[in-house]
């Protein structure tokens, strides 16, 4: 089973971000190969992942599930604890390509609603006067790569921060974009999309407010009666 855990960890590091479909596709042949029972139920899988995380936590790494508010899907994310975009884990990229990543992150962080139109990903970019900015085709390739890695997420022709960015850059986003990105009043984690109070405009996690409104009826930030519909 240890070999399975290590192999699964290597696969997680390789992919950087996995959805449940991908997890199953990896675990089924892997468990078969080593003749162990695959963790079937959700709790068993979470336990399995927690065990693995236990071995890497002290090495500044994390492995855990997160639900992305835009797709509503759960993802397993491998992240370096408290990373910053400039210490990019992307050897083999030129300085300009790393700058492109920072540019994208910056654009998203500065938007009130933390998403941009897909074509904005290729315009108004600052390469600090470099003579060798990446060509558009290269930028498209990189964006696709980073999306697969979970740094960004595409939905409805718009670009959002992906699961890995949300986990890995939590501290960076919190400190650098304090005007646009705030924490949820209930769970204290960053909230980027989800739902806003119709009175004070503060964002809050849909799941957090849903639970809260079972026993109360006002906004946890401004105290006024909560009037926004929790539709979805």
């Amino acid at each position: 089973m240890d070999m399975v855990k290590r192999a699964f960890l290597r696969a997680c590091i390789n992919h950087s971000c996995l959805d449940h479909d991908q997890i199953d596709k990896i675990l089924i042949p892997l468990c078969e190969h080593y003749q162990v029972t695959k963790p079937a139920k959700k709790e068993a899988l979470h336990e399995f992942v927690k065990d693995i995380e236990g071995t890497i936590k002290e090495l500044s790494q994390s492995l855990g599930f997160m639900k992305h508010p835009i797709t509503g899907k759960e993802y397993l994310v491998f992240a370096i604890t408290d990373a910053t975009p400039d210490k990019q884990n992307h050897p083999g990229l030129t300085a300009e390509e790393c700058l492109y990543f920072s540019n994208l992150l910056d654009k998203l962080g500065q938007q009130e609603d933390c998403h941009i139109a897909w074509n904005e990903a290729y315009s108004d970019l600052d390469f600090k006067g470099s003579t060798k900015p990446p060509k558009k085709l290269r930028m498209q390739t990189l964006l696709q790569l980073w999306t697969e890695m979970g740094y960004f997420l595409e939905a409805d022709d718009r670009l959002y921060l992906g699961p890995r960015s949300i986990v890995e850059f939590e501290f960076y986003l919190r400190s650098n974009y304090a005007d646009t990105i705030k924490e949820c009043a209930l769970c204290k984690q960053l909230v980027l999309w989800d739902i806003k109070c119709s009175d004070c405009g503060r964002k809050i996690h849909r799941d957090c407010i849903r639970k809260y409104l079972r026993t109360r009826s006002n906004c946890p930030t401004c105290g006024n009666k909560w009037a926004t519909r929790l539709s979805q």
Partner: protein
Amino acid sequence: MASTSRNASRRTNTTHSQSRTMPTQAEAPQIEIDHQVRAILNYILCHSANKVPIKYNDLMPLADNKNELSKRFVLVTQLLETRYGIRLVQLEGTPKRYVCIAEAPVASTYELTAAQRPQFTLLYIILTYIFLRGNHIEEDKLYGMLDMMGANVREEHGYFGENISKLIEDTFVKQQYLKRERSQLSPYDDPKITYSWGLRAKCEFTYQQVVQFASKLFDQDEAFFQQQLMLAEGMDNPEMLQASSLAADNTDASFSESQHAFDSQ
């Protein structure tokens, strides 16, 4: 000071009990996992992603000095092995370089990303072909085979991508999957370029897997490749060479049979 070292040894003991392959000699027992260890380990981990060898000297900026680096490097090597199943293998020559090799081959191609799968398939085909040719093949013959399969190295391929020749001559060689050698019989002859399995291929693939792949590819029984298997293993283990020298005489014969089978695909 005393309490720090007590904590250090307590933490080292935890590390000891978690790992199973910790050497018993006093391998710098007071080294704990500090931020330098984390930095070195994370550097190696993220640089191992593209499989290009890591220069030992590049790790210098991550430690206070040469001595500190060498102490921590040992711990990092152990951590990589026990927690990630990654072996740090030193390559021949100077400057000192290392590659990260997984303790076991992937159980399925799903462990690879979508972008890596076509490369993996191409590599498998090339390694199989080299194996069938006695672990030594001339570049033009290799390219000829790929062309025959519909993957001309000078053209863009729908699945394998553009620049297949760069992938083979540059990427796979740098990643230590393939060994590329140049030989020139005399200054008047054209240089010959030959490929053989690289160190990483020998660690990450087994001949048995390749035989299984070849038997599916050519629709032949695995025993059909027995001679190539013996030859390849013989080359790796010279003491077996006597037994396989007999096999080598038959290799050409069996190869031309498999080549014929290949042609008929």
